[in-house]
């Protein structure tokens, strides 16, 4: 490989990027803008869940129960309903997300020490919010039930409140949340977004720029020149690789400085992973550019090949444990999954080289494989 030829080609390529002003501005602005909007808006924390209550009992005790929801910061009370018929349209049109139905004789049954069944209606169509809301209603109801039972027992047996509570719920589950102590969904999602954005913005740029030469016929100059395939690919890839790494550093800054996600691990280990991951994505862009004939096909193939798997299979929104065997397999095939694991380990878990060397090495292997495929695919005598 003649390094000087590579350098010349790389210089020509970077000039071309810089001269297309809109293009070069977009190359920096698009990833940062996406990080700003997506990072700001994408949260799975739910507060102010719109709730309505259908109280068939209308007694002081049923109102006390209702007030557990009305006063909670997790719920936004939208009013009492009068009839069952009102529930359906409200839920379907998403005017409210949950309706709690308090049965008749709620107060008198409870006063007699009996069990009362309250009903909650949630639209299950979109699963994750439904699950969260279900959890909130469950927790609120359990707390109310326990308080009531403790009161009852304390009065009946003449015990103190703590003793009564101890008798009723002798086992307390104390959940301790590691790595993300405030349970802020952004802490988990934003470092993952860094991966998602790097995964689809820059490789698209790489692929399109090469296919553009194919479409316009400028690539014939390369076919006719004394550049070897390896030199051509390296010269093409290096400027985009550098651009990707610079973008990665910019996003890294946004994640820690703007969103306040702690970075607890080894910066050097993460930087290594970042550089290798960007090499992977550039390699992916190269391969796609060699496979397709038109720019539009390059854009579509890149989006379907990168955006969808990066969002769905890499473990940012969907926990890896929850994926079935097929999903686990698919996700293990993606460099994105490894980079996401490294990001979680570096940002939240505070781990260094010793714990994540295997993932970093995997990224290195991927980069080597992708570039070799690119080299093997590229031929100076294409079939027409």
């Amino acid at each position: 490989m003649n390094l000087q030829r590579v350098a010349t080609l790389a210089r020509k390529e970077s000039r071309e990027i810089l001269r297309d002003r809109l293009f070069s501005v977009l190359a920096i602005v698009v990833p940062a803008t996406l990080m700003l909007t997506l990072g700001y808006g994408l949260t799975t924390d739910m507060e102010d869940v719109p709730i309505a209550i259908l109280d068939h009992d209308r007694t002081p005790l049923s109102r006390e129960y209702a007030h557990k929801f009305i006063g909670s910061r997790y719920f936004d009370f939208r009013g009492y309903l009068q009839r069952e018929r009102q529930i359906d349209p409200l839920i379907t049109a998403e005017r409210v997300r949950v309706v709690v139905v308090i049965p008749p004789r709620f107060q008198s049954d409870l006063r007699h020490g009996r069990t009362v069944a309250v009903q909650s209606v949630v639209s299950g169509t979109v699963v994750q919010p439904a699950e969260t809301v279900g959890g909130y209603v469950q927790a609120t109801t359990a707390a109310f039930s326990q308080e009531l039972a403790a009161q009852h027992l304390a009065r009946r047996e003449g015990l103190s409140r703590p003793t009564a509570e101890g008798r009723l719920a002798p086992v307390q589950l104390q959940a301790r949340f590691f790595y993300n102590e405030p349970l802020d969904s952004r802490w988990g999602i934003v470092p993952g977004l860094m991966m998602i954005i790097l995964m689809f913005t820059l490789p698209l740029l790489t692929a399109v720029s090469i296919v553009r030469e194919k479409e316009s016929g400028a690539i014939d100059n390369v076919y006719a020149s004394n550049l070897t395939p390896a030199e051509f690919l390296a010269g093409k890839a290096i400027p985009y690789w550098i651009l990707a790494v610079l973008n990665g550093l910019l996003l890294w800054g946004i994640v820690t400085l703007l969103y306040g996600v702690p970075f607890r691990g080894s910066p050097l280990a993460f930087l290594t992973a970042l550089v290798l991951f960007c090499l992977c994505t550039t390699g992916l862009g190269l391969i796609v550019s060699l496979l397709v004939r038109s720019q539009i096909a390059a854009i579509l193939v890149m989006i379907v090949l990168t955006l969808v798997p990066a969002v769905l299979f890499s473990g940012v929104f969907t926990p890896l444990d929850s994926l079935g065997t097929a999903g686990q397999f698919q996700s293990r095939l993606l460099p994105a999954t490894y980079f996401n694991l490294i990001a979680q380990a570096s940002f939240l878990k505070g781990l260094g080289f010793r714990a994540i060397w295997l993932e970093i090495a995997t990224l290195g292997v991927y980069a080597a494989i992708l570039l070799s495929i690119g080299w093997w695919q590229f031929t100076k005598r294409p079939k027409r």
Partner: protein
Amino acid sequence: MFQETGEYLRQLAMLSRKEFLQFFRDPVLVLFLIYAFTLSIIAASTVVSTQLRNASTVTMDHDRTRTSRELLHGFREPYFRMQGQIHADREAIRQLDGRDAMVVLDIPEGFQDALRRRRTVDVQMLVDASNSHVAFMSSSYGERIVRRFLDEQDRQRRTPNVPKVELRQRFWFNPNLRDEPFRALEQIARMSLLFSMLLPASAMARERERGTIQQLLVSPLTPVQIMLSKVLPMTCIVLAATTVALLVVVRGVLGVALHGNVFAYLALSAVFAVNASGIGLLIATFSRNLAQVGFLSLLVMPPMNLFAGTITPLESMPTLLKPLMLLSPMYHYLNVSFGLLLEGAPLATLWDSVLALVVIGAGLFALGAWRFRREFR
């Protein structure tokens, strides 16, 4: 008058035919269209779940009694999966760090004894909270399991009755909280956005890159005809693909029961496709070549895909971004798809989203036409 209209339509048909031909001559494109509306829908809906499933769990049982084992027995599939016993705190952290375990349950010594004497005892649950939703759900399910365990203990001891409020949770339209139905429809929407936005935009940009747009403009064709000829063929292709995806893939292969009016859904899918092409054409008027089209689309598409209400519900969006979500055709289209097909709602209940789709679509199209015309005057 009639003759003029006939001529107008004939010209439009000719131009559209050219776009059809061009599309079907690109084999990679056709292949990807087929993949996008078949396999990608199956993959996105069957493989992916945001729910807590099989969370790898290890235990530190310092008590080792029948009672402690009984409690641990409650932590099982589908939510938790037991991966075995460990003995030291240090090992627990190591397992969490290395992602070998997501949950560690720590039962203190003297657990059974404390229970017998009715003294309070704490069980610790250490959770890897990198994914906060899953962490919250594991503690939520954990509490339900402990409660059930205590109820069982009470029954065995015949503890006197105390008042209790039980919650019967009902998840309407999807009682078992299956992911497939909504994810399949969401993926159809994503793919339809992708194709109906990018193809017209790129067709337009290509004409400009090659200079053939000048020829079109000096011809007797009007700018609106030129725009429509890019939009209509793609809308037809996407609509055909959506129909196949819905009837063959979603209903046939995935076995999702479709409750509502399929025709209304398809009609609104066409409206959505026109919305998406409107965005695409608008992007095309801002860019000089295809690469710029691709990049500008990247600025628009991910937010539309991710701010569609399936990850963050509208009420949880930051106030600044709420209007953005309400302006997104994707959000309204998903509302309508879910409402019509999965919840069996009548169109009347969904009128606001239908109206929004029509108004936003008309607005986008008018804006695109205005910019296009101005540019070439």
